[in-house]
C-alpha cells in the first residue's frame, strides 16, 4: 500500500480503482508510475476484475504474455486496460506456474481480448480456460504443437521442420477469394467472401503471411536498446515512425529520462506529417477501390510533396532513421521551416479542392453511405481504435486522452461522426488531414530552442546502463490508423519482453459486423475502410458473418476448429 500513496494525490480516481483491485479482488501493486499502475491479481479473480474494469469505462488495449520462468518459474499475462476518459492505464497481471500454465479467458466479458489471448497461447503456450473456441491465430498450420516461439529456450533464429503438408489446410474455396494476392490488397492476406447472389453471407479471413518475429528479434542478442528504434520502424511500411517513437517512449519511460523539448516537437511534427501522407495514401486507395481511378491518381499527386518534405526532414523519403533514445538525429532549421510551411500551404489548398470533389462524386457517396456500418456498441465491445472508432461515435484519440510529446502545445479538433459507415470513415480521415496541417503549423511557430539530444545520450553512447532491468513501461501513440501500443519489460541491455500492438490488430475483428449482409461490390471498400496494415498486424482469423440462413462453417479440417466469433 505504500507504493499506492505515491500517485494517490495526483490521480485520486486511479487510487479508487487500485483500492478496489487490492481490497476486493486480493491484488497487489507491483509497480506504478504517474499514469500507469501494475496490479497482480490471483488468476481466479481475473474475470471479475476484467468485468469490473470494462464496465467502468476501460478499453482493452491488448494483453502481453511473458515467459517469466527464468525469473520466478511462472508464465505471466499482462492485460493492459486503458482508462481513456481518465488518462491512465491499469495493467492487470496474472501468473501461471510453469507446471500448470493456464489463465482464465476473459473473451466473453471483454470481446476485445480475443486475438491477444490466442496470440498468448500460440507464442508463449499459456492455455486458456473457459474459452469455447480455441484455435491457432499467429502460428502457421504446419508449426509443431509444442514449440512456442516466445519462450526463452527457443532461439531467435530457430526454424522448426514443417510437420504437416500445406495442402491439408486449404480453405474450402466456395466463395469469391480475395487474396493472398489481389489488386485491392497491397499486402498478402486471404479473404474468402461467401456470397448469395450479390450479398456477402460469410467471410473467411486468414492472415499472418508476413510474420517476421520482430518481437523475438528485439529480445535477441543482436539488438540493443539504441538499435531497436530502427527495427521498430521496419514493422510498418507507412507509419514506421510511429513504431519507433512508441518503442522509444517506452524505453525513455523505463529509463526515467525525458528528451529535450525541441526533440519532442520535432517528433510530433514528423508524426503528424506521417498522418498526412498516410491518410492521403488511403483516400487515394479508397477512390481506387470504388473504381474512381482519376481520384486515386490526383490524391497521390497531391501527396507527393509530403513525401519530399519527409526526405527534407528525415533524410529519407519515408519518415525513417530519425529517432534515437533521448532525442532525434536531425534538426529543423529556418530554411527547412520555410519549405515546410510553403509545402503545407500547397497541399492544403490542393487537397481541399480534391476532397470537396471526391465526397461530392455521386458514385462515391452512394457507395460509401450506409455500407460497412459499425455501430457504437459493437465498436465499444471490440475496443476499436483510431478513425474507425471516431467514425462510430467513440471519442478516442490518444493525443487527447493521454497527451504525449508536444500535443498539449497545439490546439486541434478530433473529428467525430456517429454514422459508423464507410463515408464517415472517409470524412474522419479527410478532416484529420487538415487538423494535422494545422498542428504542424502551430508547432513550427512555437518550436523551442535548445539541443535535440538528451545530454546523457547520443547515437554512439550505449544507453543500456540508463535503462535498468526489471522495469515496466507502456507507451501509446495515435498512429494514422489508431492507437499503437508498445509494452516493455526491461532486461539486461535489451528488452526482456517487447510487445507491439498495432492499430489494425484491434480493428480487423470489427470487419465481421461491418461486412454482414453488405453487397459484394462494397466488401472491398469496407475491408479497405479500416485502413488495414497487415505487416503491422500479421494475424490470422476466421470471421463468420451470418445472416438468418446461416451455416456452420468448418475451416481447415484437422488443424483449426469451427470458428465463430
Amino acid at each position: 500500500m505504500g507504493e499506492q500513496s505515491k500517485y494517490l494525490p495526483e490521480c485520486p480516481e486511479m487510487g479508487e480503482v487500485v483500492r478496489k483491485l487490492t481490497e476486493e479482488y486480493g491484488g497487489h501493486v507491483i509497480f506504478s508510475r504517474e499514469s500507469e499502475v501494475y496490479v497482480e491479481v490471483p488468476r481466479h479473480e481475473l474475470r471479475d476484475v476484467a468485468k469490473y474494469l470494462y464496465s467502468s469505462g476501460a478499453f482493452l488495449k491488448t494483453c502481453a504474455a511473458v515467459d517469466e520462468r527464468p525469473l520466478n518459474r511462472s508464465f505471466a499475462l499482462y492485460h493492459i486496460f486503458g482508462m481513456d476518459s481518465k488518462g491512465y492505464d491499469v495493467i492487470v497481471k496474472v501468473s501461471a506456474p510453469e507446471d500448470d500454465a493456464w489463465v482464465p479467458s476473459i473473451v466473453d466479458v471483454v470481446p476485445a481480448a480475443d486475438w491477444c489471448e490466442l496470440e498468448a497461447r500460440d507464442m508463449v503456450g499459456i492455455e486458456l480456460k473457459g474459452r469455447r473456441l480455441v484455435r491457432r491465430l499467429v502460428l502457421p498450420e504446419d508449426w509443431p504443437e509444442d514449440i512456442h516461439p516466445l519462450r526463452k529456450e527457443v532461439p531467435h533464429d530457430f526454424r522448426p521442420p514443417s510437420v504437416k503438408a500445406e495442402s491439408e489446410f486449404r480453405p474450402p474455396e466456395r466463395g469469391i477469394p480475395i487474396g493472398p494476392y489481389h489488386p485491392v490488397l497491397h499486402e498478402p492476406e486471404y479473404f474468402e467472401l461467401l456470397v448469395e447472389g450479390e450479398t456477402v453471407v460469410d467471410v473467411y479471413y486468414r492472415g499472418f503471411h508476413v510474420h517476421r518475429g520482430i518481437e523475438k528479434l528485439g529480445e535477441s542478442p543482436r539488438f540493443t536498446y539504441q538499435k531497436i528504434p530502427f527495427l521498430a520502424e521496419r514493422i510498418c511500411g507507412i507509419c514506421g515512425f510511429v513504431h519507433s517513437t512508441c518503442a522509444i517512449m517506452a524505453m525513455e519511460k523505463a529509463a526515467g529520462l525525458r528528451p529535450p523539448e525541441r526533440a519532442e516537437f520535432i517528433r510530433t511534427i514528423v508524426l503528424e506529417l506521417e498522418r498526412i501522407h498516410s491518410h492521403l495514401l488511403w483516400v487515394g486507395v479508397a477512390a481506387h477501390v470504388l473504381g474512381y481511378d482519376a481520384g486515386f491518381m490526383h490524391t497521390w499527386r497531391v501527396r507527393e510533396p509530403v513525401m519530399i518534405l519527409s526526405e527534407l526532414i528525415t533524410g529519407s523519403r519515408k519518415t525513417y532513421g530519425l529517432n534515437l533514445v533521448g532525442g532525434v538525429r536531425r534538426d529543423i532549421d529556418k530554411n527547412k521551416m520555410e519549405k515546410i510551411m510553403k509545402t503545407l500551404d500547397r497541399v492544403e489548398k490542393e487537397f481541399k479542392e480534391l476532397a470537396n470533389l471526391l465526397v461530392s462524386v455521386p458514385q462515391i457517396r452512394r457507395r460509401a453511405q450506409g455500407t460497412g456500418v459499425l455501430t457504437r456498441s459493437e465498436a465499444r465491445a471490440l475496443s476499436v481504435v483510431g478513425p474507425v472508432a471516431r467514425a462510430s461515435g467513440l471519442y478516442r484519440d490518444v493525443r487527447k486522452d493521454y497527451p504525449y510529446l508536444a500535443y498539449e502545445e497545439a490546439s486541434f479538433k478530433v473529428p467525430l461522426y456517429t454514422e459508423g459507415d464507410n463515408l464517415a470513415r472517409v470524412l474522419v480521415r479527410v478532416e484529420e488531414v487538415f487538423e494535422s496541417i494545422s498542428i504542424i503549423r502551430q508547432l513550427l511557430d512555437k518550436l523551442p530552442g535548445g539541443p535535440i539530444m538528451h545530454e546523457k545520450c547520443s547515437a554512439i553512447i550505449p544507453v543500456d546502463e540508463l535503462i535498468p532491468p526489471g522495469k515496466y513501461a507502456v507507451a501509446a501513440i495515435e498512429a494514422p490508423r489508431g492507437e499503437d501500443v508498445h509494452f516493455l519489460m526491461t532486461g539486461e541491455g535489451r528488452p526482456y519482453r517487447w510487445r507491439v500492438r498495432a492499430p489494425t490488430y484491434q480493428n480487423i475483428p470489427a470487419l465481421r459486423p461491418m461486412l454482414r449482409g453488405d453487397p459484394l461490390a462494397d466488401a472491398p471498400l469496407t475491408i479497405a475502410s479500416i485502413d488495414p496494415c497487415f505487416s503491422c498486424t500479421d494475424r490470422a482469423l476466421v470471421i463468420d458473418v451470418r445472416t438468418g440462413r446461416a451455416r456452420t462453417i468448418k475451416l481447415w479440417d484437422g488443424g483449426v476448429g469451427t470458428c465463430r466469433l
Partner: protein
Amino acid sequence: MMDAVTVALLVIAALVFPGLLFLFVLSMLTEWWERKIVARAQARMGPSYVGPVGVLQPFADFIKLLSVKEEIRQKFATPGVAKAFAFAAIGALSATLLMLPLSPVRLAASYDIIVLSYICCVWVPFAVAVMGMSFPNPFTGAGVSRFLTLYAVCEPAFFAAILVPVALTTNVVGTPLPYSVLFTAQYSWKLWLNPATAVVMIIALGAAAVATQAKAMAHPFNIPEAEQELIAGHMTEFSGQILALNNLIHDADIAVSALLITYFFLGGPYPFPHLSVPGVILMIVKYVAVVTVVSIIKASFGRFRIEQGVAVLVKYSLIPAVIALLAAMFLSAYPVLAAGA
C-alpha cells in the same frame, strides 16, 4: 447471281475495307485515343513510347499478346470454344460495317436493321459470355453473371434508341427501302432539320450515349470486370491470344457503336460525300467526338454497384429510348405532324 467482280469486291470489302483490316486499325486507334484522354484526365501521360505520341502502343500490345505471351490454360478450360466464339464476334462486328455507307460494296435490304441488331447486339455479347465461361472460375462466374445482367438492359436500350432514326427516316423523310441501315445512315441528317423529329432524336441520342457507355463497359459501368472486386471479372483467366482477341472485340465493339452513333444520329459526312475532304474531316471529327465523350465520362466516374448500374441504365437509357421510339412511331403514323412543324 453475282458476277466475279462483285464477289471479288465483296471479299475485299469484308477482309480489307471496311471489313476486318479497317476495323482492326480503327479499333486500335480508338483504344489509343481513349487511353490518351483518360490519362490526361488523371494527370498521366498515357501511351508515349511506341510510334509518334504512342499511337502504335495498342498495336504493339496486340502483337505481343498474340505472338509472344504464353496462353495459360487451367484444368477446366476449353480455349478452343473461346477462340471460336471470339472469331464469331469479330466476324459479326466486321460484317456490320458492310451495311454502312462507308463500304464500297453497299449491302442493303428492307428491314435489314433486324440483321444488324441480331449480329451486333446478340452475337457479340453472347460470344463474350461464352468466352468467359470457357474458363470456369469463381471470378469469371460472377463476372459473366454481372455482364449478362448489364447487357440484358443496355442492348435493348441501344437497339430501341437506334430504331428511332430508322423509323423516322423511313416514314418521315422517306427512303428507297424501308427500315434499312444503309438508307438510314444516308438520310438521318435530315431529321435534325425538322423541329419535331429533332426533339425525338435528342432523346434517342442521349439514350444511345448512355447505352454505349455500358456496352463499352467503361466507368461507371465497368461492373463486370470490376478489378477491385473480381480481379477482371469474366476476363480473369484470359491470357495470350485469347486476351488479345478479347481486347480486340472490346475495342471493335466501341468502334462500331461509335460509328453507328456517328451515322444514325450525327449524320456521318453528310451533306458532303464520303470521298471529299470536308466529308472525311466531318466524319473523323464526329467519330472522335463520340469516343472522347465516352473517355471523359470514363475518367470522371467511379463504379456503380450492379443494381445501381442497372437502375441508371433503365432510368436514363431504356425508358428514354422507349419514349423516343413511341414518339417516333407516332410521328411515323402521322407524318403530316412532322411536315407541318
